[in-house]
């Protein structure tokens, strides 16, 4: 039902021709115009999938504090000030003081404006508060720092540090031994001789390990052969866990007997542990009942992947929503919108139409009827309108051409090619290929005031005119209307009787523009640029989707009546 025009970015394939639109993967090559960028250097469209992204600044979305990038890493990409999220509902928590001591004599007791010392975090949405899990604060500021201490000494990071200590001597030994001997495998061979042979060998193994080394070291296998003799020796000192899994499971977090008992007697509606979701499980102890520090956001600038010119660059300040550099495609490419007149009639002006219509059909159509009427019924022919809006300060000449999808269909094996043939194009699009002009964009105020009214009138007029047109067979293909910097061209799509699926076709839009002043398009190196910098042509692909075809059987005859 949804009709749309999306613009092609060629980053996913090497050829500039877009993939045929019936492939599911093709939808990822097409993007709405407002998400695209335009690189002036390369004279090419860039999308969010191919631009290279750089972080130009971090800030907390809650307090808008700009976090210096040096501390972002240590603070784990989260706000280190007073911003917390509720562990239940992700609402922002607020710091609230305790009730003032109930002294009957006077209100002077809470001297400080901030409140009474045991502070806690409170969720105004779900009423969770941090006192529930025993977290209170002495001061209302620097809460994150107070909490981070406990994060740092979480069991997993302590265990991790211990592991690091455990492996570090081995690594050091291995780097020593490998530096003393040119061939890395010599450590493995000489480990019978060295006094510290065991650790050296193990560490050398550790340093060298990993598949692929064998490629450089064909002796791996023989090395292993040597090792086999020492199989029953422990080649590495035993690692003593800080908290081993048995101990942990006694606390009910390791999947042991206590866990099974707990699980098997889960009550019907018991709020079982929050961590028992797949992601929670994998995170281990991350998801606890602790208040969560709010994740930072970043301001990003994006560069063209080919020439590394900046395409968009925001202002540094977190409060600002402006950009220093902004090369968006909407400023370069004509904006195309699509309308299906029969849908406009049926939906946009359904009530007006119903009132206006002299014949029958006074009752507002039901949803179902609307669906049927607005849809594209197999075997019918529908006009459609493409309106092109020129963002440039110069008039452009536009040429539209529909890509013949099934000719360009992938040359797959013969078998599936035959299949393609069998279900030959389910629809035929007719669109005028003669170039037409779209007037230059002028500042909006020049024709803003009266055009709005005029627009509506025009639309109404056009619509009522359109109503009769199918009968009189007036022009539906070709330029229908020109005003300001908008040109509306009409096309027609003829659906075959047996058509199914979506009406979706690729359309090549090429436009020629004349740039008499060298700014800002003066430095565009267009591929088809001739020596004379008078006119330049730029071409891009779009995919036009008109909607889903309603199969013939379900079609309603009353559309014509």
């Amino acid at each position, binding site marked *: 039902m949804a009709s749309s025009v999306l613009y092609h970015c060629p980053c996913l394939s090497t050829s500039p021709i877009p993939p045929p639109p019936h492939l599911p993967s093709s939808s990822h090559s097409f993007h709405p115009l407002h998400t695209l960028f335009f690189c002036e250097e390369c004279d090419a469209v860039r999308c969010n999938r191919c631009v290279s*992204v750089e972080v130009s600044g971090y800030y907390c979305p809650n307090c808008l504090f700009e976090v210096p990038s040096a501390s972002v890493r240590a603070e784990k990409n989260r706000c280190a000030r007073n911003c917390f999220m509720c562990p239940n509902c992700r609402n922002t928590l607020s710091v609230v003081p305790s009730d003032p001591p109930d002294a009957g004599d006077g209100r002077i007791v809470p001297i400080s404006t901030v409140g009474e010392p045991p502070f806690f975090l409170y969720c105004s949405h779900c009423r969770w508060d941090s006192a529930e*899990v025993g977290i209170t604060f002495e001061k209302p500021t620097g809460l994150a720092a107070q909490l981070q201490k406990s994060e740092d000494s*979480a069991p997993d*990071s302590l265990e991790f540090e211990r592991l*690091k200590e455990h492996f570090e001597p081995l690594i050091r030994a291995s780097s020593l031994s490998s530096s003393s001997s040119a061939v890395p495998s010599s450590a493995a061979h000489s480990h019978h001789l060295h006094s510290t042979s065991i650790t050296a060998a193990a560490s050398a193994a550790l340093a060298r390990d990993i598949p692929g080394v064998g490629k450089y070291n064909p002796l791996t296998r023989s090395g292993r052969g040597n090792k086999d003799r020492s199989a029953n020796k422990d080649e590495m000192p035993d690692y003593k866990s800080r908290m081993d899994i048995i101990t*942990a499971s006694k606390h*009910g977090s390791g999947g*042991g007997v206590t866990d099974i008992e707990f*699980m098997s007697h889960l009550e019907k509606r018991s709020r079982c542990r929050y961590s028992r979701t797949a992601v929670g499980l994998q995170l281990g102890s991350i998801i606890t009942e602790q208040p969560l520090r709010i994740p930072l956001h970043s301001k990003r600038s994006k560069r063209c992947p080919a020439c590394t010119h900046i395409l968009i660059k925001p202002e540094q300040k977190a409060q600002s929503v402006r950009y220093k550099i902004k090369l968006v495609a909407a400023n370069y490419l004509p904006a195309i919108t699509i309308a299906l007149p029969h849908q406009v009639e049926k939906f946009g002006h359904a009530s007006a139409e119903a009132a206006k219509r002299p014949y029958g059909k006074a009752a507002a159509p039901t949803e179902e009827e609307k669906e049927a009427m607005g849809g594209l019924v197999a075997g019918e022919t529908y006009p459609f309108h493409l309106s092109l809006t020129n963002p440039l300060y110069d008039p452009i000449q536009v040429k539209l051409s529909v890509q013949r999808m099934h000719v360009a269909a992938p040359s797959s094996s013969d078998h599936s090619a035959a299949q393609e043939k069998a279900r030959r194009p389910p629809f035929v699009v007719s669109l005028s290929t003669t170039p037409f002009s779209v007037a230059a964009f002028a500042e909006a105020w020049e024709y803003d005031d009266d055009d709005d009214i005029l627009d509506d009138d025009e639309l109404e007029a056009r619509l009522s005119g359109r109503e009769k047109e199918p009968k009189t067979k007036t022009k539906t293909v070709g330029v229908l209307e020109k005003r300001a910097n908008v040109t509306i061209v009409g096309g027609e799509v003829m659906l075959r009787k047996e058509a199914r699926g979506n009406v979706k076709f690729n359309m090549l839009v090429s436009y020629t523009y004349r740039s008499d002043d060298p700014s800002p398009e003066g430095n565009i190196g267009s591929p088809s640029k001739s020596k004379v910098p008078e006119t330049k042509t730029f071409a891009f692909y779009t995919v036009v989707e008109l909607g889903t075809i309603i199969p013939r059987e379900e079609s309603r005859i009353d559309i014509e009546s």
Partner: protein
Amino acid sequence: MVVVKKRRVRNNRVTLSRPPPPQMSGTPTTPRSKTTFNPTTPPATSRVQSSAIHSSPHYTTTRRHSLYGVEDRVVIDPGSRIWKIGFSGEGKPRDVFYSDGRNGQPLWGLSRASDAAERAEEDRLLEIKVERCLRSVFHDSLLTDPKARKVIIVEHPLLPLHIKEMIARILFENLQVPSVSFASSHLLSLFAVGRITGLVLDCGHLESVTLPIFAARPLFPQIRTTPLAGSRFSSHLRNLLIFFGTYLPPTSPGPSGSLPAASRSVRVPPEILTDAVIEEVKTRCCFVGEALSTILDARENTPGFDDQSTDMDFPPSSDATPSESDYSYAGHDSVMSSVQSSVQDSSEFSVISHPRAPDDPRRGGGGGGGGSGENQLQALASMYKRHSTATDLKMSVTPPASSAGLGNGTLIIPGWIRERTAEVLFEGGDVDESSIAEIILDTLLKVPVDLRKTLASTILISGGTSMLPGFIPRLYSEIIRAIQPPPPPTRPPKPYNTVQHGHEKSSPPQYDRYATLRQLIPYFAVINNPSPEPPLSDRAKANSGKAPAFSPACMAWVGGSLAGALKTGGVEVSREKWDEADPHRDDDDMDMDLSPSKPGGHGHDLQQHTPRNILPDWTRIPLPSGAPPVIMITQSQSQQVASPTATAVGA
């Protein structure tokens, strides 16, 4: 469906008739009383609190160390379903996310389309998704500049090469990272528990893989795999819920809304069991019970088992499991049978509400419902039901779009489903789909004899599916059970590994597959077993349950983080090397000029994506002299594969 039924029934017979394994006969019998229920709240927070006093000096050094630097690498553990990402040097991943959304499909599966065009399309979609994931890793989760970060990819040993190439290509070309290193997930899991030798089982979403590792060298030729893993578990769970679950549609305004729950209950409509719901049930409600044979064996010793079973099973039925009295399955309820017209349904429910002896396969309702397969499935279900003490759970689910009522529907999950769905992972006997215990034993059979004892005593279980509570202890007991001598041939049915031949062929001496491993029994130890049995040897005692308490799913990532912090782990492939090895860098333009008719997108896939041998992979390690190098084989194979496609394109 039929396959599932058959297999389960097969197992049913076997487990019923299995004689008691000697060491298990002493296990406590049926009345696992509910008074032992001891609600232990997770003490995670309290532990954090108590240990929060002093922070480790090492951590501060790490922090200073990495203040401005970008030497911390990005560690990515890309699964087909769940990705774990973070910075090296940290004890837990920064972010864990579903690769394709909660309801999404796994990124890749165990098979690829055979048709070249379909496969190309599949690959394109995969690349798009992988690219989206990788970009979000850097830009959304870690907020870091990919150009400044070296990357460690935790690589599953059976990750298809084309996916590995794809990941590398996206990292180098789209994100332009300076270097990528691939490290074996099994090895990294071992690092995370402070070892470099062990037998590692990774039970993930697509498959379970065992890999023996000695002195940090993975013995890749001894790798063993089975598709019994998370996705199989999910599909089995879905089937069980459709067959035996109950669904209460949302109450609708009007007279029908006042009906009691029992009369509203219907069969579970498949469309409410979205992947997200299944995932929810799997992760929040399921666990792994004790081996059924253990319970049964213990019971067979008690006289009068058959007569008293019903009484023994539900002694305090009315009060201890109140959920059963809340709603009745009501097989004979006339209102309900009007709701469900199908005979099959009502017979199913009557079966559930009147469990009978499991060895009576030809029973159940009108008998006309399903074939014998269905009846046997029901027999199995009723047997599980009788031996499960797990409570039934209610879960609120979104009703299907067509339903009339208001609010959410309720899904009732029988307790035995929660407990016994995991049986599917432990059912062996299939040549292609060995049970998880069997692949461990198969690996042990293959490793050199002098390593067996060492490896048997250092079994490490990692991977998300093994996070099911009770999985590891159960796996241990399954290993011991599988290794027991097969029952004497006077007992009619076979052990599981010969059960396919049925009753009639019982005379030849049985193939005792694991006889050579039997002497290892005292040495078996799972080093991250949370509740190990009393150890039978010193070595087992020293090992079992001694691993640090990292969650099994995270282990590979933690190992990767450790390797990154220690500046080891994996051969680095730098971007320069990648660019140099780009086989098409020079002739790309020429290609396009020469063949302008080439359809878009396809030239890309067929030409640019030819594997470059720059990425290290264990399949490319030259074998010892005598055998042809694998690399040559793969190359010639790929040529063979490539040539027909090339002709197809030409044609």
